[in-house]
């Protein structure tokens, strides 16, 4: 450090900062300046990034979508006041556990759909009403969203769904019976559809 002969560094400081970080998230929450809280959780589909505003769950990202990139997008599009603060994600993380364990068929946590606008948010509204264990075609969703010819746009809206799993875009499949693309990967989509058909996931 600038050629100083005095060593100001200390290994224990990293732990002290962890404690201080936790206090900071509590104070930020209490003062209403924790705009985006996030944590990561393990799931049968790999590590998931969960993020919530004060309104609700705003982002769920699969590992292959790059968690760092997802956090940067939140900083840019929602607020740079982003902190790792697990408490706000406790409910959704519990519900996801229950869902993957086959003990939950729908999510009750509030969602914040501010990352989707216009037609894409209309598509997400439709998706929220597709029941566990059932599927719709892209064309069917386009029709329900009020634009029967916007089949490709439905595909885009599903691919860019900011809150997959909780808003079940995996329940939209191709008319020819193929499961189609998925932000978490085609394999993950197949496993979710299996789970909802009562086939055990987890291999």
């Amino acid at each position, binding site marked *: *450090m*600038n050629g*100083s*002969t*005095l060593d*100001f*560094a*200390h290994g*224990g*400081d*990293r*732990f*002290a*900062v962890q404690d*201080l*970080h936790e*206090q*900071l998230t509590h*104070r*930020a929450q209490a*003062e209403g*300046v924790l705009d*985006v809280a*996030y944590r990561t959780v393990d799931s049968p589909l790999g590590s998931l990034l969960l993020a919530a505003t004060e309104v609700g769950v705003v982002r769920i990202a699969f590992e292959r979508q790059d968690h760092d990139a997802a*956090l*940067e997008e*939140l*900083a*840019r599009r929602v*607020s*740079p*006041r*982003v*902190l*790792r603060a697990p408490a706000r994600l406790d409910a959704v993380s519990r519900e996801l556990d229950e869902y993957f364990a086959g003990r939950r068929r729908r999510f009750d946590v509030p969602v914040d759909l501010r990352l989707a606008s216009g037609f894409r948010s209309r598509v997400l509204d439709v998706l929220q009403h597709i029941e566990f264990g059932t599927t719709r075609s892209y064309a069917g969703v386009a029709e329900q969203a009020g634009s029967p010819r916007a089949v490709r746009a439905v595909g885009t809206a599903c691919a860019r769904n900011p809150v997959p799993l909780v808003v079940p875009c995996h329940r939209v499949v191709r008319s020819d019976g193929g499961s189609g693309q998925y932000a978490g990967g085609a394999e993950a989509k197949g496993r979710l559809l299996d789970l909802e058909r009562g086939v055990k996931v987890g291999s």
Partner: protein
Amino acid sequence: MSARVEPFERVVEEHGTVVLRVCRALVGPDAAHDAWSETFLAALVAYPRLRPGSDVRAWLVTIAHRKSVDVLRVRARQAVPVGDPPEPVSTGEHPGDGRSELWAAVAALPPKQRQCVAYHHVAGLPYDEVAALVGGTAAAARRAAADGMSTLRRTLREDQ
């Protein structure tokens, strides 16, 4: 070209430890945690208004500079006799590793030397930025830091 907006979490990750050491040099080990908390809460509040491309560490040190004065003022006001002495705040120091002597020696420096040592030798700010914080010229800041460092070296050598 607009700079990327870093999530605040990264600011804490990258600068949290250095700011803690700066606070310790400025207000001593007991009050350092208060100063750190006040600094980062204020930084979080102001963060969306920070111009992209700014020197984040220098910005945090500026806030720490201000908050340290506040924390010392509050501590001075609270220094009234009490029945039971409060539990000392853990500072992550290991007894006998020589660091409590280091921080005690830093605390014994005159305020300006202590600040210049903290901002230059702990935070790594160049002397013109140190001078902007403590007032005076860069040369004066360099002299104060050098005086502070030689006092520290002398004190710590005598201790051994």
